[in-house]
């Protein structure tokens, strides 16, 4: 029955045997501790993303969701050590040099960060921040980049996108800034986007709009999304697969319908029970 639910999705089902675009194998991350011993925040995490798929990553605060994203991006805090493999289209990101990683970041894999109000530079225009990486990665001119940026802003439903380019972050609401950040992450048409709580703090209608946008991009462009959220409601609305993290370990992973309706792990069940107006079956 759960499989039937899954097949009911309106969008075309991607071939099951399609190669994973992002394959995280045994990712272990240790952060330098105050005493020098270091604390391990991720213990052998495995996650796989298919092109065009949305993989939801749930887990309570501090479980290591953001760390997983940062490890993929190679943006762990200074002194952190990552082991395991992060295969992006077959290439291990953990083994890349800083220079090689620079060519991948923002171009093949990008990240939308958790706090929208602080992730844009307050003294640079939206246009500057939407086009600098576009121009760097795609080697296009200023005018063309601005055209594309305005296009993107339109797609994330920013009103009068052309004027918005010459405005500064403080002239936008938190929700708009969040959508600008999403636009920046999508600018170079990456294959994978890590979206860390992209809808937290947005009101319900805008949240729905952002989720629809992400879903649409997956279907249209074959974009794969690692959607970090502790909102299981968002998860059930959009994710194809769901993984649940606890204390840096994946305790549950599988198709959305199976995980959310028939959780195997007690922890997932308790998460589901914590949802208002909802009980785990």
């Amino acid at each position: 029955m759960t499989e039937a639910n899954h097949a009911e999705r309106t969008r075309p089902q991607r071939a099951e045997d399609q190669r994973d675009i992002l394959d995280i194998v045994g990712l272990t991350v240790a952060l330098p501790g105050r005493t020098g011993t270091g604390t391990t925040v991720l213990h052998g995490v495995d996650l796989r993303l298919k092109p065009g798929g949305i993989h939801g990553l749930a887990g309570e605060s501090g479980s290591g969701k953001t760390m997983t994203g940062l490890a993929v991006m190679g943006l762990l805090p200074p002194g952190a050590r990552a082991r395991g493999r992060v295969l992006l289209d077959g290439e291990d990101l953990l083994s890349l040099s800083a220079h090689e990683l620079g060519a991948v970041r923002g171009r093949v894999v990008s990240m939308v960060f958790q706090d929208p109000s602080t992730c844009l530079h307050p003294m640079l225009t939206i246009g500057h921040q939407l086009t600098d990486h576009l121009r760097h990665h795609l080697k296009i001119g200023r005018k063309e980049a601005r055209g594309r940026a305005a296009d993107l802003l339109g797609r994330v439903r920013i009103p009068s996108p052309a004027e918005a380019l010459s405005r500064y972050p403080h002239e936008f609401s938190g929700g708009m800034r969040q959508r600008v950040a999403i636009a920046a992450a999508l600018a170079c048409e990456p294959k994978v986007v890590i979206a860390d709580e992209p809808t937290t703090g947005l009101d319900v209608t805008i949240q729905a709009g952002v989720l629809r946008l992400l879903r649409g991009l997956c279907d249209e462009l074959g974009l794969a999304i690692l959607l970090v959220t502790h909102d299981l409601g968002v998860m059930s609305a959009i994710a194809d697969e769901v993984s649940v993290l606890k204390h840096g370990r994946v305790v549950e992973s599988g198709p959305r319908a199976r995980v959310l309706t028939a959780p195997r792990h007690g922890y997932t069940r308790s998460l589901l029970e914590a949802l208002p107006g909802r009980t785990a079956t």
Partner: protein
Amino acid sequence: MTFVLTNLVPGDPATANLGEQASSDPAAVAEYRRQHGLDQPLPIQYARYLEDLARGDLGQSQQSHQPVLTDLRAAVPATMELAALAILLSLLVGVASGVVSALHRNRLGDHVLRVLSLLFVSMPTFWLALVAFYVFFDQLGWAAGSGRLDPGVTAPANVTGLYTVDAVLAGQWFTFWNAVSHLILPALVLTAHTVGLLTRFTRSAVLEVLSQDYVRSARAKGLPERTVLVHYVLRGALVPVITVAGLAFGALLSGTVLVESIFAWPGLGGYAFRSATTFDLPAVMGVGLVIGTIYLFVNLAVDVLYGVIDPRARVQ
């Protein structure tokens, strides 16, 4: 303001300016006071002072026996030349070493720069001036002597009052290099404190910005590290750096008082020193006015720069 402060000073200009013998003669003192209007009650003195000020008359210096305005006209450009060079050098060196220090946080380069900047900040400027003068002029003979030019070199035609600029305008290269050679040592002495100050503040400002989410976002976009540094980090650190630069300029001006006296630099600082120690009140008040005006303009410039750098600070 300057009027009140200068009149509060417990000293008597009459005794200070008349000399040992005359000041013991009550008649001479009374005559001196009458001549300079000092026998009038303070409010009347003040009204007279304002009246003269409105006419552009700052009074007569009791030391140089010239109008204070004439003295200031000569002194201000001399100090400006020195202070401008010093603040430029401080900004160049201080900001650069602050950035380097922050980027090498807790590594050898950082430690060295932090110790040096602490040393520079805490070194008394007058002491440094004496040591520098003794070592580089007396002992090594590397630096040019005191004053703005060697004796025998005539000043270039007065356009801006800045000898270096005027010499260039007149095409007098020998005079230019001579003026530069006289500028360097006092300017470097003045620079020490502000370089230390700017290094320390730039370091902490850059570290603060480096930990900001927007820098991480810039890196996540795959921008080259140089672009991240120039466009995102330095831009973010500019506001605190400008603030400190404004304060540093103030510190630098007060440093000129003793540095100019030691290097016999005919500027505002030396003039302030001489007029204060001889209770030459019109001169002291004139200097106060000029310094106040300079501070005002520096603060204004800092405010304008805030608006240029940070769109949030712009008046809507």
